[in-house]
């Protein structure tokens, strides 16, 4: 079941004196789809890693009613699924089935239940019959879908995507948008691909230099060209390109 996320004054640094996140606060409602844009090195991926407790900074992160802290990690990791940018980082088992079953088995499901969840998750990704395929023999698009299936198999209430549209052709982007549109979970999507991000999210946040510069309805955020430029998006370029080649 989808659950909300509340982040209050979250700060984090990998090395002393170099803050990657600075007093980040966000409130995301259950079932909401929030897109986060920002230039490279803005702290977007770092922020996602805080959602399921892989990184722990100063401040408060709540998933539903549960605070993200050491003792709540098993619950939090069951609740929050992370889809990494590079599917090769997510697929480390020899076969697709073992990769997708990895989460459910770790979370205490029996082998029979895990097998059912694998079937369902692969079915949702149109990957029926891929159970015994070697992960490293799949195409990038297939690997991306398997990576998402590994997360869906645990039915998380929150799914966080790190650059899901990168390296995909536009046909695959449309497929992925269709899948994202059907997900019954709170979604946090970090991406520099503005068009797909804007088309699948309800709200947009702009993260620059570890700080949230704006967060609101996507129409409002997209209308502020100076803000978008700060977030690494040149709206003028999109407008010109559209007029020149597509209109």
């Amino acid at each position, binding site marked *: 079941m989808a659950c909300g996320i509340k982040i209050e004054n979250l700060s984090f640094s990998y090395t002393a004196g170099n803050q990657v996140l600075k007093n980040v606060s966000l409130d995301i409602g259950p079932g909401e789809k929030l897109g986060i844009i920002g230039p490279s090195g803005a702290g977007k991926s770092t922020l996602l890693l805080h959602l399921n407790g*892989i990184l722990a900074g100063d401040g408060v992160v709540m998933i539903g009613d549960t605070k993200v802290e050491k003792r709540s990690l098993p619950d939090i990791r069951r609740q929050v699924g992370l889809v990494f940018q590079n599917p*090769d*980082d997510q697929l*480390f088992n020899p076969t697709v*089935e073992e990769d997708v079953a*990895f989460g459910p*088995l770790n*979370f205490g499901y029996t082998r029979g239940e895990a097998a059912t969840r694998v079937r369902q998750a692969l079915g949702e990704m149109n990957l029926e019959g891929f159970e015994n395929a070697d992960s490293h023999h799949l195409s990038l698009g297939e690997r991306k879908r398997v990576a998402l299936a590994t997360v869906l198999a645990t039915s998380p209430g929150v799914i966080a995507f790190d650059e899901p549209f990168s390296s995909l052709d536009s046909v695959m982007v449309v497929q992925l948008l269709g899948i994202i549109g059907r997900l019954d979970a709170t979604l946090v999507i970090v991406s520099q691909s503005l068009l797909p991000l804007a088309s699948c999210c309800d709200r947009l946040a702009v993260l620059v230099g570890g700080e949230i510069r704006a967060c609101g309805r996507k129409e409002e955020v997209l209308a502020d060209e100076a803000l978008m430029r700060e977030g690494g998006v040149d709206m003028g370029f999109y407008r010109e390109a559209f007029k020149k080649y597509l209109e």
Partner: protein
Amino acid sequence: MKHSFLDRYSDLDSPVHRIDPRARLIAAFSAIVIIVSEPHGRLLPFAFYGIIILFMTAMTRIPPGFILKRCLAVSPFIIIAAVSYPLSVPGAGVVENGYLLTEGVRSGLTIFLKAFFALVLLILLTSTGKFHRLLAGFRKLGMPRLLGVISALMYRYVFILHDELLRTSRARDSRTPGAIRTSRVRVYGNQAAMIFIRSLERSQVVYNSMLSRGFAGEFPDMDKLRVRAGDVLPAGFFILLLLTVRIISQPLTERLFN
């Protein structure tokens, strides 16, 4: 990128491919023990072993050229061991009364044949099924869990390292006019270091990904292997056949050559 350098023929359908990996493992390692336990200097039994292994190879439908190429990669070590034996062991000469097939040469040949057959058996073992099923078989046979996990991850990341190697090599070659001179061998060092650093970074991300799906030090598995009579019987027959050769070849050799 697609890879098939490790288990290229694992998808073939043959009676050997269909056997449970545990039965194949036991058969292969028993066969190696039987062949290696053959005393030095007796060549006749190796003719029988050769025929049996050849028959087995034909059954797997794996091209013999592929097996021989794989063997070639290791054969220099075997050849050095086999050739140096008659020269290094006192009393084991190369020529004796004008004959080349002396005790020493025969012993060298048996060393070569033992290593060669063991190699062929291992290649057949790894090429007649998916590597992950073989690992599952090892685990079922009592392989330490941690060793199984490390092997599985190594197998998985060989392909990613290979990709990294290809990418960095292409980047290097695209900016290199012709072959790199010896004086610039530092480039290879830098490339190796870069691959090492990337591997380290990747291992950290992979670990994060494992943690995010509840990893707490134990690698779960789906436990799908089932042994049937159809697996045990052919493997048992294969072992029995080699054992028979091993037992009856000694009096046969003595009768023929003494």
